[in-house]
């Protein structure tokens, strides 16, 4: 009896140990796989990466629905968790179909049906390497600006004058509130390696923090403090030319006798 109980306990402990070892290795594999998530560009409407990773069943129906062969299921060697749909804009960008067929094909809701307008998609954010951008060097390029499907909003061209004898720069700027991350700019960029690239916003975007106030952009309470107090409502006939008061705080003997 003793021996069999001892045997049972040993067996149970050993079984638990095998399960724990296996579980730890398995969990480590999952963590490793998930680490590539941050590099992947997802189809339009994709949920936040953690939710997307959990709800995407890796069936490839979005890939099949894409008329431009933009989307691919990640293979083990790609920079995305294996089997999940992603795209590489420099190969084929997203051409932003207005009927969003990839999202319609998704059976799980990993590509959210709440996205109705493709211009509201946020697949990534274009980032410019100003050191290799032709426009930033002083050449007239602006290709990214011209191919951008939300031209004038996602990418604008700013004109910067320089010293005499050098012509002005016409430099592109990306605006995150309008950029869909479609990657047409990255695809079209004429430099050897694209000087404008679409990345996961989480990799490049900072955050100002709520304690900074850009006073010139809004009426903040601070500027209100410096407004002059409002004049008391006028009583009786208005005085056209106010004269200096006879007495006022701060008047003393030195002020006397100079009144006309």
């Amino acid at each position: 009896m003793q021996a069999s109980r001892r045997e049972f306990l040993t067996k149970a402990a050993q079984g638990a140990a095998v399960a724990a070892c296996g579980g730890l290795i398995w969990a480590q594999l999952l963590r490793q796989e998930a680490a590539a998530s941050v590099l992947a560009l997802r189809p339009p409407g994709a949920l936040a990466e953690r939710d997307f990773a959990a709800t995407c069943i890796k069936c490839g129906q979005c890939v099949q629905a894409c008329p431009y062969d933009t989307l691919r299921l990640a293979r083990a060697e790609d920079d995305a968790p294996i089997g999940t749909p992603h795209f590489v804009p420099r190969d084929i960008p997203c051409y932003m179909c207005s009927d969003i067929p990839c999202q319609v094909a998704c059976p799980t809701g990993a590509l959210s049906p709440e996205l109705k307008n493709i211009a509201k998609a946020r697949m990534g954010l274009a980032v410019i390497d100003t050191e290799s951008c032709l426009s930033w060097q002083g050449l007239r390029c602006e290709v990214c600006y011209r191919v951008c499907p939300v031209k004038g909003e996602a990418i604008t061209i700013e004109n910067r004058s320089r010293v005499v004898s050098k012509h002005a720069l016409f430099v592109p700027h990306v605006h995150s509130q309008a950029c869909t991350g479609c990657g047409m700019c990255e695809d079209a960029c004429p430099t050897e390696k694209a000087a404008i690239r679409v990345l996961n916003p989480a990799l490049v975007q900072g955050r100002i923090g709520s304690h900074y106030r850009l006073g010139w952009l809004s009426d903040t309470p601070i500027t209100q403090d410096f407004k002059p107090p409002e004049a008391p409502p006028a009583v009786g006939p208005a005085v056209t030319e106010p004269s200096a008061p006879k007495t006022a705080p701060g008047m003393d003997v030195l002020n006397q006798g100079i009144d006309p």
Partner: protein
Amino acid sequence: MSAIPLSTRRAARLYTPPATLAGKLHDAGYLILRRITQVGVLLLFFGTLHWGWQVMGQPVLRGNLSASELLGVIPLADPFAVLQQLASGHALQATVLLGAAILLVFYALAGRVFCSWVCPMNMVTDLAGWLRGKFDLNNLFRLQRGTRYWVMGMALVLSALMGVAAFEWVSPISMLHREIIFGVGMGLSAALGIFIFDLLILKHGWCGHLCPLGAFYGLLGNAALLRVRFDDSSCTHCGECVRVCPEPQVLNFKKAAESGMVTAGACTNCARCVPICPEDSLDFALRWDAHPSPGASQPRTPNSTVRNTP
């Protein structure tokens, strides 16, 4: 403890492969059918994706074995993958839930047929098993066949802990069909690993001991209507069926005699045993068409009494 005393049974004859080609084809019938459905399903996916196969203007079969859409309307989904996703604590769209429900009902009726009639990994492990027989290789270690149920449980626990479908993320089966259908990559190395494991390390190692998907369908298969029927009166206990069965523990003569069929859910309905039986004691039947043999002990559960009443 057989139903009919061994002394009164006929002497056992072993299976002799037929000499004629027609006989060989007849005996390989189910095997050929299984290969046709396995390759056929992959081909439907592949043809729809790469060659635009359509029926009445609708794509034939879009997606892959994880989730798909048949003829543009009927959703299908791997119920175990969906279960893991739900375990990870995420809500899913109705489409995929309906698809999972459809296959859940199908496999609950048809038994563990996914493993032997659909899963592409079956071709890999069958090849390993066939080669293993040619070279007469030994197992490196022993493993309980119940291990897979623990792996299955762990897949659900890890899904809940890690917030992603734990087996789907590392599934060599998914890597295999995904890469056959959508483009070949390094995922095929997982299938190679399983081939080597089954060939050199453990007989029926993956499908019979470890695969949590097979474990899931095995649990589901306990309810199956489609069964291998067993006729105890003609059986000589020659053991040929047990020799070819990839899940030999399901062929328990005593249990089979009592219920007139193979009852274990782990049976994949692969039908290897059917043509090899020299006495034709085995064939496919629906659950209610299987009757205990006259000499077998009375069924124990009231359910089976009701079921076996004509």
